[in-house]
């Protein structure tokens, strides 16, 4: 087990190194940099001033040197300076992480707490009206883009309550806290909960047909015990995989949701940084997201062993 964990950690480091090279090169292949954007948009500029700014930002250096400079700084905890705000990148990124983390956690919580129980219900009552209703809900969840759902929530909120749940950095009441995080989480987590529900349902249906389930029922185990203790425990592995993958894909939904609900998290910040070609911000944010994704995958793999004692890593 220990050897496996070490191997996985080494693999994680290699993956992160590969991502750092890919993102660094890709950013520089895309035409235009911050200097082009600033100067071309302003017009009426002196090309010497432009070259001077390029030199100041180190953009005139060879790409390999720029990469070594960045990665060297990263290893020492120095993320560089934002080209746009001229503040340390860490100072720009760090305050935004808890906002997005909270939103993502709420979205995953929503996804799991609705998706799994409803998936179980749908499987247990297969073919019933409830099953059909839940399948329609899950289909709609997969079909509704999160930006559209977000806008619908905002419009409904204005029409019904005369208020709008856009980001409040300092929520004072439970209602404000709910509006700040839960409604956006619902918008972003709805699709994920629908997917979780469908996977849980199909996995449960497979397990519920197994002999040991029949045996458990024959021994007089209650429905709750059979469904949740015997069946769900064995059906949960694919669900964990999906939730793990969804955690990685959540960033896509968060970009849109943070924009619609005006939440100043890292997802929207990343888009802005890409727009300005703010390399230090983009590179470090992508590395952070990559770290979260590979860590989530690692945790999911470890969870397999926890939920299914038959799995042993060697």
């Amino acid at each position, binding site marked *: 087990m220990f050897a496996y964990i070490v191997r996985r950690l080494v693999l994680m480091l290699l993956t992160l190194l590969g991502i750092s090279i890919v993102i660094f090169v890709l950013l520089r292949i*895309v*035409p*235009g940099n911050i200097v*082009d*954007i*600033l*100067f*071309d*948009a*302003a*017009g*009426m*500029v*002196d090309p010497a*001033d432009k070259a*001077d*700014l390029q030199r100041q930002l180190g953009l005139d250096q060879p790409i390999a040197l720029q990469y070594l400079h960045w990665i060297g700084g990263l290893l020492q905890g120095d993320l560089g300076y934002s080209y*746009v*705000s*001229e*503040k340390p990148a860490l100072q*720009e990124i760090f305050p935004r992480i808890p906002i997005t983390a909270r939103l993502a956690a709420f979205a995953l919580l929503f996804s799991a707490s609705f998706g799994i129980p409803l998936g179980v219900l749908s499987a247990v009552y297969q073919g019933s009206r409830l099953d059909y209703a839940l399948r329609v809900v899950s289909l709609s969840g997969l079909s509704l883009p999160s930006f559209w759902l977000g*806008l619908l929530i*905002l*419009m409904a*909120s*204005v029409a019904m309550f*005369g*208020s*709008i749940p*856009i980001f409040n*950095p300092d929520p004072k009441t439970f209602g404000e806290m709910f509006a700040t995080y839960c409604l956006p989480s619902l918008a972003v987590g709805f699709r994920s909960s629908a997917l979780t529900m469908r996977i849980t349902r199909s996995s449960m249906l497979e397990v519920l047909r197994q002999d040991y389930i029949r045996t458990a029922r024959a021994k007089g185990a209650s429905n709750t015990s059979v469904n949740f203790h015997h069946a769900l425990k064995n059906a949960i592995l694919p669900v964990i995989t999906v939730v793990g993958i969804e955690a990685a894909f959540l960033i896509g939904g968060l970009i849109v949701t943070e*924009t*619609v*609900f*005006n939440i*100043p998290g890292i997802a*929207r*910040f990343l888009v*802005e940084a890409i*727009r*300005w*070609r703010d390399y230090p911000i983009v590179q470090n944010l992508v590395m952070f997201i990559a770290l979260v994704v590979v860590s989530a995958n690692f945790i999911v793999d470890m969870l397999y062993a926890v939920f299914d004692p038959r799995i042993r890593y060697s």
Partner: protein
Amino acid sequence: MRSARAFAAAVLSLLVVATVARADEPKQGGIFRIYHRDSPANASIHEAATYSVNVPFMPVFNNLVIYDQSKPQNSMDDILPELAESWSWNEDRTALTFKLRQGIKWHDGKPFTSADVKCTFDMLMGKSPQKFRQNPRKAWYEEVSEVTTSGDFEASFKLKRPQPSLLALLASGYTPIYPCHVSPAEMRTHPIGTGPFKFVEFKANESIKLTRNPDYWKKGLPHLDGIEFTIIPNRSTAILAFVAGKFDMTFPTEVSIPLLKDVKAQAPNAVCVVEPTNVNTNIIVNSSSPPFDNLDIRRAMALALDRKAFISIMFEGQGDIGGTMLPAPAGLWSMPKEMLEQIPGYGPDVNANREEARKLMREAGYGPDKHLSVKVSTRNIPVYRDPAVILIDQLKTIYIDAELEVVETANWFSKVARKDYALGLNLTGNAVDDPDQAFYENYACGSERNYTNYCNKDIEKLFDAQSVETDLDKRKKLVWEIDKKLQEDVARPIIFHSRTGTCWQPYVKGITVMVNSSYNGYRYENVWLDK
């Protein structure tokens, strides 16, 4: 009995008058909440080329002179002294001297002197050891040879030749005075001014906060305790938040005509105005390579334009047709209607214009059986993309099959500079309704913003002639002549001048939306909240 009634009536009238007077009296206090359309790159007005910076940061500063903030139309007659007490021209109009106010302090407590004026303009002219990261309006001061000081409270602008427009440029929101003792880098992140509001914080993508300057040199002003801008790039969210009462005002001149209808339907009490912005939508033509190196094809294209259709589709009729200068009544320099209609393509009979265009196309070798294929390039932003689509549709009527090519903003200007386009759909904003700014910036040989590299030495002589002319009527006639020639040369065909909306809650008082510039009316010292 009668006299008692008369007395009662008189008392009542006095009470009513007193109440009305009190109602009109500005109330002190309150935070003015506005949403901001995007996150500005920095807080330095001198380094900005967008009013996204002027709107939140103009309240931090003062100019030497400023357009009267209570008058919607910027004009020379309405320029008021600000940091300057008075100004005077010398006899041959080559020196403009300002007497400065005394006792004014920067927000950090240091005294304001003439050295700050000199510093600011030396940096703008590129003569200072301290440099701006970008200096987009350096060319505004091309005719200024130097700025000198005489004591702590007098500054003079020495000119290479007379330029009456200099005062107009100095009155723009783009011309604040910066402190000598604060570096350009600090001004980008924490601006220090002498204005009615002090900078508190700027959180990128989040908010900008300003607070009342209690030591403001204009006693009793500003009325507000502060201004808060919440950055909401998503337009739908921003409008919904305004409708829900989260904001006191929309971002100025940012509400499109269709959105304005939504606002009025959902917030009927909101005060909304639709005004010109002095931003025109135009076509940039690559005349250095085929097919548009042929003047006849360029003329045919200009003749094919149905400007009214653009305005009907995009603004439900609320737009203006004109040349380079903003049309009257908002604009001060536009040519008379009868003169405008003499220009090919501006005549009211669109079908006749297009028939003439088709004739020119046939002469150039194109016709119903041989269409000309081109690309219309533009930025990937709705205000650019939408008119480009209409243009493509209109060009079909003269045997031109155009295809839309959308380009990301980051690549747009370099593409234009490389001349990697045939036709481009472009927007041009003018910070000051003044011919010097519009002509030199967009049409002078060698100007970086002259994207098409249009260069006509005869017209350049006329640019200089109007620029030195001090007689307003004579100058106007020269400007009309220039504008007419620019349109006839198809230098950069102007399609329309846009109008957009601004809305505010009924309790917001003292807002003036300027009609001939989107860059100059955001000092906000007279704004107050009646609640």
